[in-house]
């Protein structure tokens, strides 16, 4: 049975869709484009579902199932194979990616129906699915990295999809460049792995680790820290989260698929996948936990005051990803992945619902101009309510189980875990507050729209069907997974080191659950007070705490800070210092540069590429002389001038005839 299962079909199918739409889409009618765009992900999902059935029910014992398609790179001692790997974690991720992915494709048919470049949108979306499935199926670091960069590329293309918006292009570039910083860390980590394990294969590395290869904790920590940089970039954690809010410039279904459900969770997936490295690097684990908790709290506070509906959801995504990081940091990988799954359901639902609202309101994103949409958009309203309940952790909705699991594990993970538990708990309250605020502002009360002629309309069925399916998943996803989940994943990410977790007692877990629900309910209550009925309580609160409100509204001025610390100096260097090379006038006029060393360096740089031949010669000679002096000094340092043995240097004077003719 297994031999008929072709894993390569899973990524290739969306890729074929990408090729067809990318090459022919311009000339095809919209119906054909949408059929192609929907059929291939659906087929891919079918393959995943079949694989899941085969392995989980029939023969779970043969997992992980590895297929080496061919030698991929064969460079001397470096052998890397084209390996696809399937195990429980992969199956789970693949189901989310292709399943939720398909729903979002379906939704997009309605949402993007009027856009120019319809075919381009769907070809990019299929390309994204291709890279994402490659990322998850990869059996080694390198193939994973290919998918990793590929999803970044697809995300870049999709964020910048609205070609006529300059802000969209800049947001795309920001996302790409910030991700590159993370990728840089990931790559360094990969090189470190290669240098220490001489392999990049996940399962081979696990074997090496389990056989006690004598690799030091310091090495594990170094690798772990590098990988964390990569994970932070992709999963938008402090300090690399800045790209995600801007990424909302893209079409809303893209935000749902890439920036909520799938791509941004790649960092969590990567940590879970390489957990055997992290298990042996306590410092790296603590770093993850702290980053996660800090991000969760920080992003939630920013989310409190945002008025753009998508931005609230963006910060909420960052915050929820922080929870997943926190889970990984306390070695509760299965809790983290559990939350990843439930989050994929309810956050995709929230984004799609927001998309439906935006669609119905003719591209209005400001929540202050919404309100009273319950009557016009009933399906959207109540599906979103399910998602709000889920994300707020109200039982028995999906988010309750996963968040509860994370908080419980954190509480039981030593003293650091206890501190982080309270951070997480506070975040849960904030989350529930801003999500209900969003829902109240959008759907309840009276319409605050200035455009009275326009009546919001409910979306077509192709957009509502995904909402309903996701709502069902958000409602039931939690208790179906509860309990079975860690058992299912234990062969893959069950910690193989005795976890510091204290044996959990039923009563403690119950207390923790009750506390968490109470906090969530408190958040709901506050939101209800402030926003259920139109009143000026919120306004009063904002004025009485103006400092904090402004700090939050401006997202702690982080973008400005980054600009001052990183962007401005780089711009300064490239524009001014290098600009001086061409524009000597600037320098001559300014006396302060002419004084002191500053003038010398400025002048040198300006002179360097002046176009003047003689100065080029001068620089060339200077360079050669510097190298010569340096080499002489270095050679001296090596001792050749001291240990110089003249008798051995030149045979000339010793035997003039040594060189024959």
């Amino acid at each position, binding site marked *: 049975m297994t031999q008929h299962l072709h894993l390569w079909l899973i990524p290739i199918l969306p890729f074929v869709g990408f090729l067809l739409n990318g090459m022919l889409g311009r000339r095809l009618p919209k119906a054909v484009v949408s059929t192609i765009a929907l059929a291939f992900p659906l087929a891919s999902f079918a393959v995943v579902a079949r694989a899941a059935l085969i392995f989980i029910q029939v023969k779970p014992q043969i997992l992980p199932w590895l297929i080496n398609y061919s030698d991929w790179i064969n460079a001397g001692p470096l052998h890397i194979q084209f390996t696809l790997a399937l195990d429980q974690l992969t199956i789970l991720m693949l189901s989310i990616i292709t399943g939720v992915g398909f729903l979002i494709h379906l939704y997009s048919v309605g949402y993007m129906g009027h856009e120019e470049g319809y075919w381009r949108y769907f070809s990019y979306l299929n390309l994204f699915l291709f890279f994402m499935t490659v990322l998850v199926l990869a059996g080694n670091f390198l193939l994973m990295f290919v998918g990793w960069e590929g999803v970044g590329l697809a995300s870049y293309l999709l964020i910048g999809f609205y070609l006529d918006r300059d802000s969209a292009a800049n947001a795309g570039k920001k996302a790409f460049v910030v991700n590159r910083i993370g990728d840089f860390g990931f790559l360094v980590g990969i090189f470190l792995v290669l240098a220490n394990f001489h392999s990049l294969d996940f399962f081979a590395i696990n074997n090496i680790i389990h056989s006690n290869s004598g690799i030091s904790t310091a090495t594990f920590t170094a690798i772990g820290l590098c990988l964390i940089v990569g994970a932070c970039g992709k999963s938008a954690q402090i300090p690399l989260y800045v790209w995600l809010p801007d990424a909302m410039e893209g079409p809303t279904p893209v935000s749902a698929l890439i920036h909520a459900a799938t791509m941004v969770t790649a960092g969590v997936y990567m940590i879970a996948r390489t957990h055997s490295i992290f298990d042996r690097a306590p410092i790296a684990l603590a770093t993850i936990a702290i980053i996660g908790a800090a991000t969760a709290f920080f992003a939630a506070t920013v989310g409190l005051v945002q008025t753009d509906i998508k931005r609230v959801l963006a910060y909420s995504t960052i915050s929820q990803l922080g929870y997943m990081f926190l889970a990984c940091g306390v070695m509760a990988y299965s809790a983290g992945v559990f939350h990843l799954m439930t989050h994929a359901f309810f956050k995709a639902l929230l984004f799609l619902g927001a998309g439906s609202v935006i669609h119905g309101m003719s591209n209005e994103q400001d929540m202050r101009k919404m309100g009273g949409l319950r009557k016009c958009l009933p399906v959207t309203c109540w599906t979103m309510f399910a998602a709000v309940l889920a994300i707020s952790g109200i039982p028995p909705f999906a988010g309750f189980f996963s968040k509860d699991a994370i908080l419980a594990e954190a509480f039981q993970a030593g003293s650091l875990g206890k501190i982080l538990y309270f951070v997480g708990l506070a975040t849960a309250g904030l989350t529930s507050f801003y999500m209900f605020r969003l829902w109240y502002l959008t759907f309840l009360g009276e319409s605050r729209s200035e455009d009275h002629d326009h009546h919001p309309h409910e979306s077509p069925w192709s957009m509502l069907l995904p909402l309903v399916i996701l709502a069902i998943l958000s409602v039931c996803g939690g208790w179906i997974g509860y309990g079975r989940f860690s058992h299912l994943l234990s062969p893959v990410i069950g910690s193989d080191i005795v976890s510091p977790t204290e044996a959990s007692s039923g009563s403690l877990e119950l207390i923790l659950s009750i506390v968490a629900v109470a906090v969530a309910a408190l958040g709901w209550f506050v939101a209800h007070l402030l926003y259920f009925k139109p009143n000026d309580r919120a306004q009063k609160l904002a004025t009485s705490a103006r400092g904090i409100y402004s700090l939050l509204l401006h997202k702690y001025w982080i973008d400005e800070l980054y600009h001052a610390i990183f962007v401005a100096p780089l711009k300064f260097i490239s524009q001014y210092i290098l600009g001086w090379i061409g524009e000597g006038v600037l320098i001559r006029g300014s006396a302060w540069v002419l004084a002191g060393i500053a003038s010398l360096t400025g002048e040198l740089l300006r002179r360097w590429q002046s*176009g003047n031949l003689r100065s080029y010669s001068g620089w060339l*000679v200077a360079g050669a002389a510097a190298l010569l002096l340096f080499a002489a000094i270095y050679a001296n340092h090596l001792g050749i001038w001291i240990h110089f043995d003249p008798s051995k240097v030149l045979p000339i004077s010793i035997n003039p005839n040594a060189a024959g*003719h």
Partner: protein
Amino acid sequence: MIPASWYLILSAVLFSLGVIGFLIKRSLITVFMSIELMLNAVNLSFVTFAHQWHSVKGQIFVFFVMMVAAAEAAVGLAIIIAIFRARATLNVDQVDLMKL
């Protein structure tokens, strides 16, 4: 008998003078001459070593350098003519359209 190093130092001096020509001469033609001067300095060094080794390889090398230098001069002067046609100047300081 003269130490071979004298020849080598002479060669080094000539070479340095050639490089200085690059730095101070404004006329392109004279800069080209500086290249020839540098090549001649190299040749002297080769001949000296060839003499010390009693090997003709070094002399052959010089022979090739001469041939190459002749060809290079022909090409260089053709470029000079092209420059002169385009700019009507042979001043090094004025051939600087491209910068930064």
